[in-house]
């Protein structure tokens, strides 16, 4: 169980030395350790099947091991990116040594809570880890201590606090339903036990429980109308934090909903969960696409794009069935990779221009061609242009929607079109165009950007057979 032991130790050590010159490197080293441990775990799960650890308190199956690896990978590349980024922030006087220490320590603690939420078998611990993730990210968002970042963090805390309290009530109801079947031991909240007895759970209680759990974790996924915290938190926090929020936290919250959906589907005969997820997913896609076109701040714009994509994934899982689930998982992967890559380039671009307002960022391709090309390619990828992976998953989602829920297709196509037009019309002048800004003192770390985009491109062209078996296995777990 090195996977989450490493970030926990890392956060403790960085709490002590996080202000030193070498702290960013230490941060990278711990993230690398976590990633290696996650890879080892993946190999084990693929070769030996689902694993238990520590008296069944932890449970790894194809579904969560895939998100664990993704999480560890994005956490590693974000740590790499934040090395030069945070040095520039320090030179510009935005980050003082105590703040850097807080930042590095919370970064590792955040990785720990994410991995704990993913690997735990206990629905109660899942809740505790999600709440802890909220707390660490609140501190990360407010790290600049400006008026706007405090406001964003306060809003984030209160909204997600209320949301997650609903999820706790849902968990209580779930426990109540389970207790009637298996008796009142701690085992009644273990997901594997719940999964085994899900057909006997009381439908009335489970319906109510799922409603509360969906609202609660849905707030964290950023589903409309519970999305208000998301653009603020993304825009006002440091850019590495925006990258991990979009790339990781939203995925993990969605994972929590999926776990609850599996249980609820087993207990109910009706397609209630699917309909709820389709409805909210579609609403998020449409609303976010139209808000996209009105943004002036580059990070806010991409935050709305995250809402749109999470809505799309939620819609896919709501439709269910092997193809839609497969597409949903694929979309989760490529969205994480591409969106974090975009935030990396946006971070450097706005650091260079000294602003996040899009009208004032110009001519990236002249000053630093790699940043410019990274942003350009990333935007093309996120908008679902072939040959990137997003195209493949969006295509699969759309054809399933056409076949099974044809009423939804016009809304989806319209929103994707609006998003395409508005993002591209903003990004083009930012990349091309005239500018007079100087280079940054620390060379930006752009390898992660192109590694992410490269993987997304690869997934669009060719999915290796072992990966597709893995996806299919995971899709089957969600009830494909």
């Amino acid at each position, binding site marked *: 169980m090195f996977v989450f032991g490493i970030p926990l130790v890392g956060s403790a050590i960085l709490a002590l030395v996080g202000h030193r010159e070498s702290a960013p490197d230490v941060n990278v080293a711990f993230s690398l350790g976590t990633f290696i441990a996650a890879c080892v775990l993946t190999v084990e799960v693929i070769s030996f099947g689902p694993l238990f650890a520590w008296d069944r308190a932890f449970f790894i199956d194809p579904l969560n091991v895939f998100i664990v690896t993704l999480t560890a990978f994005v956490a590693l590349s974000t740590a790499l990116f934040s090395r030069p980024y945070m040095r520039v922030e320090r030179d510009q006087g935005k980050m003082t040594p105590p703040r850097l220490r807080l930042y590095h320590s919370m970064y590792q603690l955040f990785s720990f809570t994410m991995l704990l939420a993913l690997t735990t078998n206990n629905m109660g*611990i899942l809740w505790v880890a999600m*709440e802890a993730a909220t707390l660490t990210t609140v501190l990360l968002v407010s790290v600049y201590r400006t008026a706007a970042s405090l*406001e964003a963090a306060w809003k984030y805390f209160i909204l997600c606090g209320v949301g997650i*309290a609903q999820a706790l009530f849902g968990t*209580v109801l779930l426990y109540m339903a389970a207790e009637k079947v298996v008796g009142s031991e701690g085992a009644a909240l273990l997901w594997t036990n719940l999964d085994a007895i899900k057909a006997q759970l009381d439908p009335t209680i489970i319906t*109510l429980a799922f409603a509360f759990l969906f609202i609660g974790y849905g707030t964290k996924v950023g589903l409309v109308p519970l999305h208000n915290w998301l653009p603020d938190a993304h825009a006002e926090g440091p850019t590495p934090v925006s990258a991990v929020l979009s790339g990781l936290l939203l995925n993990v919250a969605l994972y929590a909903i999926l776990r609850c959906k599996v249980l609820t589907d087993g207990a109910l005969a009706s397609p209630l969960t699917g309909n709820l997820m389709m409805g909210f997913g579609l609403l998020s896609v449409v609303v976010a696409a139209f808000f996209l076109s009105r943004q002036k701040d580059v990070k806010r714009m991409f935050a709305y794009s995250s809402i749109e994509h999470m809505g799309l994934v939620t819609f896919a899982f709501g439709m269910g069935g092997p193809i839609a689930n497969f597409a949903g998982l694929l979309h989760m992967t490529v969205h994480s990779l591409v969106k974090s890559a975009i935030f990396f380039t946006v971070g450097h671009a706005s650091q260079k221009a000294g602003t996040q307002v899009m009208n004032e960022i110009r001519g990236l391709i002249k000053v630093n061609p790699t940043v410019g090309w990274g942003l350009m390619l990333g935007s093309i990828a996120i908008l679902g242009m072939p040959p990137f992976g997003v195209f493949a998953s969006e295509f699969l989602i759309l054809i399933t929607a056409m076949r099974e829920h044809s009423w939804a297709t016009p809304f989806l196509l319209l929103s994707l079109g609006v998003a395409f037009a508005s993002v591209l019309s903003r990004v083009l002048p930012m990349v091309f165009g005239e500018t007079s800004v100087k280079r940054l003192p620390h060379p930006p770390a752009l390898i992660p950007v192109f590694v992410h985009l490269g993987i997304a491109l690869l997934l669009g062209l060719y999915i290796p057979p072992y990966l597709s078996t893995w996806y299919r296995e995971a899709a089957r777990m969600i009830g494909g």
Partner: protein
Amino acid sequence: MSGLASQLINLFAAVLLLLAFAMISQRRVVSLIHLYTLQGATLTAATLVVGYATHQPHLYLSAALTLLLKVLLIPWLLHRVIDRLSVRWDVETLINIPTTMLIGILLVILAFHLALPVSQLSSTIARGTLGIALACMLLSFMMMITRSKAVPQVLGFLSMENGLFFAATAATYGMPMVVELGIALDVLVGILILGVFMFQIREQFDSLDIEHLEKLKED
């Protein structure tokens, strides 16, 4: 014996509901904290009675945890915060108090309606109180919405957590111990962070009025 115990639990539940209404109608921050402390004390007593009547030793532990956290530690922290910030003044509400009370009554009816089918299925001695627990949650939720200052918002959040805790005790004799410890830890860390935030908001805006936090809007 169990008749007396269930009467006692119903009594405590009624007290909790009354306290939730009192918090809605209360204007002074200091009194709000006193009410929160009382709520914590009632919760401790209710947990003890449920634990005694059903012979669930882990409920004693969670009652002790409640006492320590919600009657002693958090109120003490809150008192320190408001002393340092000197915000003992009256609280502005966004909607006037009689209207909030009326909405509160509607919320209670809604809560009972929602909880009725669930509590009929429950087998615990405190099953009748699930509706009250849900009502407390909704009332605190409303308090968070209608208050415009930071401290009452936080108190609303905390009292919502109390309602949740009571729901867990009433419906299932409490969550497994490890989960309960985790929740307690999260609440404690959360309140510490919020405390620090209040100082920072004060520094930035010279006021704890959340209405200042309206810069980040969609235009």
